[in-house]
């Protein structure tokens, strides 16, 4: 993979790669992509894709409300919170 392509991909993946990191990962990424090329040797024209090994249909159940009393407990796990809200830098 070209370096430009790697940086576009990193931006899509929301990863702030340093130049040193990009250099280090570039080889490893290309090595795997080259390996993936071997999939082209297989004739897949008559094969349906398998998305899940054993799941055949949607799993549905009744939509019954259940109590959930750990709201505060969950908000408290945020790196910064205030008055039961999660704090992030200004977006506007």
């Amino acid at each position, binding site marked *: *993979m070209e370096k430009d*392509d*790697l940086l576009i*991909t*990193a931006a*899509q*993946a*929301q*990863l*702030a*790669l*340093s130049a040193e*990191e990009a250099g*280090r*990962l570039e080889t*490893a*990424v290309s*090595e*795997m*992509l080259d*390996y*993936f090329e*071997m*999939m*082209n*040797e*297989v004739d*897949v024209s008559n*094969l*349906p*894709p*398998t*998305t*899940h*090994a*054993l*799941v055949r249909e*949607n*799993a549905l*159940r009744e939509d019954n409300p259940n109590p959930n009393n*750990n709201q505060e*407990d*969950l908000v408290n*796990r*945020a*790196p*910064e919170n205030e008055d039961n809200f*999660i704090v*992030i*830098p*200004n*977006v506007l």
Partner: protein
Amino acid sequence: MTELKEHDKDINSFLEFASEDAAASVAASANQDGPLAGLTFGVKDNIAVEGMHLTCGSKMLKDFVSPYDATAVRKLKEAGAVCVGKTNLDEFGMGSSTDNSALAVTNNPWDLECVCGGSSGGSAAAVAAGLVPFALGTDTGGSVRQPASFCGVYGLKPTYGVVSRFGLVAYASSLEVCGILADSVDTTRKVFEVIKGKDGSDQTSIDHIPASADAETVAVLAGDLGLKPEVETAYKKAVDGLKSSGMKIIEVELPMLDYGIAAYYTIAMAEASANLARYNGVRYGHRSAEAGSFEDLMRMSRDEGFGDEVKLRILLGTYVLRSGFQDQYYTRAQKIRTAVRNEFDGVFTKADMIMLPAFPTAAFKHGDQSLDQFQQKLADKFTVAANLSGMPAMSVPVSVENGLPVGMQLMAPVFAEERIFKVAEKLAEVLPPAACPLSMAGQRTTEAK
């Protein structure tokens, strides 16, 4: 607990031990009549245990404490078992040595200079060292079976969906299962009976409908498999062992195995890139102290929180899912997944079971340059097929070569776990598993009631 910590000092299989008080109070209130009463267990640190850390071996989640129990953990507690701590792993389950953990280095109890395998390496090492009779692991492409082989213990990857994934930190959802590392077939079976079953909290979970437990014919691979001599020797011993227990052996070929690795990594990385998008420094996990804007907060938190192997897989996964590349990589991989599955289905019309090595090598030394991260991925060729097809597979210790254990993998059609257990028991009669020299033998309860 003090004794466990002392014994684990050189092995370092646990990232966290339950506090003395917590373990004592849980033990006192445990179900004394449950099928697992009296048994202690460890939990791989990507599976939730209420009130304990859930680090995934990552700086990203180093300080995160789980607010609830995974379904499998809850069921074990209800059956009377007592959780003593969380075990080390490759970061987010990505690796074959546990050396990709950002938090600790775990050594193989058979040889402290060697790796314990991965990614459920801490769980395998803890069982081998006799710290616990069993531990939970997760298996996405061999992460229970390969460390089981490296540490000389049993390692079951159940049929996909049969054990709930609720409370298991997602890596590659269509491939991963919650598995068991244990000191005997009997313990593995008892734990499996407890944790299996459909769960409303996991939409991919299914009921276990047992398949026939009878096995007469076992298929093995012919030709040069590229195995290290110690694994080659162990494979032959295991084939002879099956023959002497009255099994009929047939030789087969599985040409799709090599393509399976490429398909497996394409799918696993694509799913990982989506699943790991949730770590953005907002709701929980590491948050960068340097970020001034919201966008920087996400990008920098992820860059600082993830290790190299995780970033590599997120990048590759994002790339293969980019518009214009999907057919070339992801969809093609899913079609090859079908081909792998068809190939195994074909073998199961002639044989009741397949036996493959778990890994082409025994445990290797920390930092072994001959087996870098790329080579380690290629070496997953014998294990990924079970994840692609959903079938159960178990690594069984069959031999000790040059002081290191080697395990073989018994694979059966979906829902045929009991068939695997029966053949594993027959193998244990002719090739009894050796005890690890560093095991706390005699200081634990090995048999469930």
